[in-house]
């Protein structure tokens, strides 16, 4: 039996017609770092809150460490949680915020001091020990919230978009701190985020959700390389995967605007004889502008006019219209283009994905 098991979990809010979470199934091993990702309203926070016990489970079963937890009080589930808005006790100092739970657990004073000192030390909060939350920055507040969670030695950490209120730079450093903390403590962590970059960089496995339904569960690179449907393909990866309505006939792919590319045997084998209208997907980095690639895919070479550029420093994003769709190509920082430049490019044929036009299921 896995450490945490969610079996056919449903959530319907009173008065709602639609399920907020539908038939959620997941097994989480001890020490795993799981990220729930998806757009706003996809049910990821609701699922986390059902695990925490703050939302009632409408149907299904939740097991933590082999025990059914559906009707167990939040405090008896062996969990610690970090909230999006920190949820610190505003009238208490950093030290008291961290020690409050331990005091209520009747932990001996000497033990409390040891644990609080340890948490304050590893989170770098020493100089803020006697400050109240209002006198701390967002990052410091989130570290206090983490401190409050880690001192209690709970089996499971739940984190509900803990970095969403922080600025981009701080988010990156806190991301590292949380990952480091997870490695140090070895605790089972469930992390909710709408930011796929956070999920990709931190999680052992990612659960992608949409409209309350799990779309795919897998390791970050599995999701990136082998998305099960168009939604996952579009959600994971930045910039988003390019999609085109196409017609496949034999080994020829025809775009709506008439351009064609030829498919290699590898892709044809995966298509397994499927033909007709489909959606083609290709990631920005698989659109090539370099001489070597263009000579390699000479007959599938395409042209377009650059409409916008994003200079990222380490690479450039070029935006242009192709196949009737706005397309983004990720190219090296040395491939400098200006808006209005006419460019030649080619798709890496072995890197294209095909999705069913209607069901959006991924064939390749």
């Amino acid at each position: 039996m896995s450490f945490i098991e969610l079996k056919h979990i449903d959530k319907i809010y009173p008065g709602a017609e639609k399920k907020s979470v539908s038939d959620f199934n997941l097994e989480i091993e001890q020490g795993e770092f799981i990220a729930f990702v998806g757009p706003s309203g996809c049910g990821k926070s609701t699922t986390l809150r059902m695990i925490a016990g703050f939302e009632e489970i409408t149907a299904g079963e939740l097991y933590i460490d082999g025990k059914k937890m559906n009707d167990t009080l939040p405090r008896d589930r062996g969990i610690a949680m970090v909230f999006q808005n920190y949820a610190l006790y505003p009238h208490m100092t950093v030290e008291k915020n961290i020690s409050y739970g331990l005091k209520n657990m009747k932990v001996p004073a000497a033990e409390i001091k040891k644990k609080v000192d340890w948490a304050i030390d590893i989170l770098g909060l020493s100089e803020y020990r006697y400050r109240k939350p209002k006198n701390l920055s967002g990052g410091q507040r989130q570290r206090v919230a983490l401190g409050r969670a880690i001192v209690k030695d709970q089996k499971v950490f739940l984190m509900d978009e803990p970095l969403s209120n922080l600025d981009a730079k701080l988010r990156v450093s806190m991301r590292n701190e949380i990952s480091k903390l997870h490695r140090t403590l070895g605790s089972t962590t469930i992390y909710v985020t709408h930011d796929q970059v956070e999920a990709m960089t931190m999680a052992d496995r990612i659960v992608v959700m949409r409209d309350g339904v799990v779309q795919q569960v897998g390791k970050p690179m599995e999701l990136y390389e082998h998305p099960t449907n168009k939604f996952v393909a579009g959600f994971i990866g930045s910039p988003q995967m390019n999609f085109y309505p196409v017609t496949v006939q034999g080994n020829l792919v025809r775009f709506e605007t008439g351009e064609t590319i030829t498919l290699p045997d590898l892709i044809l084998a995966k298509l397994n004889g499927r033909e007709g209208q489909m959606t083609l997907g290709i990631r920005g980095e698989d659109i090539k502008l370099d001489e070597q690639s263009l000579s390699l895919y000479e007959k599938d070479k395409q042209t377009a006019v650059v409409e916008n550029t994003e200079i990222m420093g380490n690479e450039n994003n070029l935006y242009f219209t192709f196949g009737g769709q706005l397309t983004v190509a990720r190219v090296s920082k040395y491939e400098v283009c200006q808006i209005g430049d006419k460019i030649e490019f080619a798709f890496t044929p072995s890197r294209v994905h095909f999705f069913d036009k209607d069901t959006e299921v991924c064939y390749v």
Partner: protein
Amino acid sequence: MHAKKQKPANIILAVVMFLLSLFFLFPVIWMLANSFKTDAAITADMNTVKAFIPPALNGSFLDNYITILTDTDFLRYMVNTLFYAAILIILGIVVNGLAGYALAKINFPFRERWVLIIMMLMIVPTETIITINFLFVAKMGLLNTIFGYILPMIVSPFNIFLFRQVFISLPDDVWEAAQLDFCSPIKYFFTMVLPMSKTVVATVSVFTFLGVWNDYLWPSLVFTSSDLLTAQIGLNSITSNDNTTMGQTLAVITMITIPVIIIYALFSKQIVEGVVSTGSKEG
């Protein structure tokens, strides 16, 4: 530039405010100045500027006050009132606070209807229900007891509404975090909710104190024993006594006014915030 434009307006405003405050303070200054005088001196100074100036400091300066505090039970009445106010502040915060919390944060059937009923009760003047309260206390055999006096005064629709308006804005995730920190609901109320809502607690305390301190009708109905009387009743009995001089009367009035002035001076911010929060937008 903006500040420069405002300056003349500010000066005019300050002058107007000063004149207005003098106008309103005239009776208080007159009362304070004459509370140190003998009746003969009061009569002599009448219709002169001296009526607003206290007498010179001498051995008899505090005579009126000393007489009141030694020859009457007024000190006891004041202590009684402070005691009742303290009890009612504590009980009022607990009872009305818990009710306000329930109406703000706990989902139960017809919650919004209850809020509406409480808002409607706010417009019912105390005087209209005082007979019912009296009969209720009398039937329970609680007349002339502290409990009988306090019981009908604990629940205040206004204070419940005040608490509810403030508690409604408390973040729910703090309660969730507290639950995971093994905090019981009651402990959460006392160690989290009340400390996080210091302003409303102060406001309710001030309003309760002023209500008890200034109340005349209810204690005069409930209490018959002179041991339990409140300051306002004491004031009435002392001032209506033929042997009480004008100076002593003014000394009593001064003594009963001073706590109110101190409270207003110290907590004017809370009083204003309290009134503002009752009118604040819901949610």
